[in-house]
């Protein structure tokens, strides 16, 4: 009976992806707003502030751990108005429950000197394509522009981290040793003439050598994404498995689609993809998903 009353009060089409989270207080919900990659315009911030001031019955917002703005304490009767008012600046509601969530991302390669891949563009693109896709459990994705991995892609169901492959040419090298100084991994050691000796087994593909080199003797041969799958946090954290390196930027969407398909077929209800991998084996995932994307 209660459901019938609620139906008259709320447009359920607005709720299909969740994003309205029940609170302990009767009839109050937290409205989670979509902020892909955590980047938000001042225009949207002002509108959110205005809406929150009007409709939060508790008088505050919360910045979620996954970069969303949440308006806390919104009464169920105000849902439609809140959604409409936010829509005037294009601000959408995010999701909760067993589906693809809004992707997170680091600040962005436009202004961060470490940035290798464009996480912000990718987060928006991936959000548009995959947001709300139903899954066995929640499905979280994140993008880090470089191996510092601010987005913690090891905790993502599917994480992408920027990498760059360095190559050195002896003609331009003047033996200054700055690359060996710049390399934090010990992958580059200078010989007697100051020239680099490169040990790829230690390289994390961060590109510090390329950025440090004053003569452009170090160059990037290719850039791409290191792909991690099966990570999660929560009660039983699981570190993601690295399944592919140097995935080209234009293959990210295909990789996500293939992973979601595999998860749908191999996973069980209420099981995160990392648990599915533990149950059926990482090799199965690699063989059925990752191998098709491996470059020769």
């Amino acid at each position, binding site marked *: 009976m209660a459901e019938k009353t609620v139906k008259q009060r709320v447009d359920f089409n607005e709720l299909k992806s969740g994003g309205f989270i029940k609170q302990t207080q009767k009839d109050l919900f937290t409205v989670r707003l979509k902020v892909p990659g955590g980047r938000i315009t001042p225009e949207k911030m002002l509108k959110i502030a205005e809406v929150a001031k009007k409709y939060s019955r508790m008088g505050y917002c919360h910045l979620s751990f996954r970069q969303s703005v949440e308006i806390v304490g919104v009464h169920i009767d105000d849902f439609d108005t809140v959604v409409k008012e936010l829509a005037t600046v294009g601000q959408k509601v995010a999701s909760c429950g067993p589906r693809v969530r809004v992707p997170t991302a680091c600040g962005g390669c436009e202004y961060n000197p470490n940035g290798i891949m464009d996480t912000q563009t990718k987060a928006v693109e991936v959000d548009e394509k995959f947001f709300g896709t139903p899954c066995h459990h929640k499905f979280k994705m994140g993008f880090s522009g470089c191996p510092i991995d601010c987005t913690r892609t090891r905790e993502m169901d599917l994480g992408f981290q920027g990498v760059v492959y360095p190559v050195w040419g002896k003609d331009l090298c003047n033996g*200054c040793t700055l690359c060996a100084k710049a390399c934090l991994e010990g992958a580059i050691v200078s010989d007697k003439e100051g020239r680099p000796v490169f040990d790829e087994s230690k390289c994390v593909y961060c590109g510090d050598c390329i950025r440090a080199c004053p003569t452009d003797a170090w160059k990037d041969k290719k850039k791409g994404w290191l792909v991690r799958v099966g990570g999660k946090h929560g009660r039983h954290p699981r570190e993601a498995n690295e399944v592919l390196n140097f995935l080209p930027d234009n293959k990210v969407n295909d990789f996500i689609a293939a992973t979601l398909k595999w998860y749908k077929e191999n996973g069980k209800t209420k099981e995160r993809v990392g648990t599915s991998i533990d149950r059926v084996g990482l090799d199965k995932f690699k063989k059925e998903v990752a191998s098709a994307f491996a470059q020769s």
Partner: protein
Amino acid sequence: MGEDEKVIPDDKIDLRGVLCPINFVKTKLKLEMLDTGQILEIILDDGEPIRSVPRSVKEEGHKIIKVENIDGAYRLLIRKA
């Protein structure tokens, strides 16, 4: 780097003991006082300074023409862009 051995810097600054990113900011301010093509000598500590400052200088478009190890610190010559 033989051709640069006898380069005489137009200005110099000793940044030993100066932390990041103040060492870079001081380098930048010194470079602003110079004309294009002039040379600045800086001395940097090992560790974080030698890792960070050269790369920031490069990002600003200047050219590092010499790097020299002097008793655990580094002497760099920078040609202003």
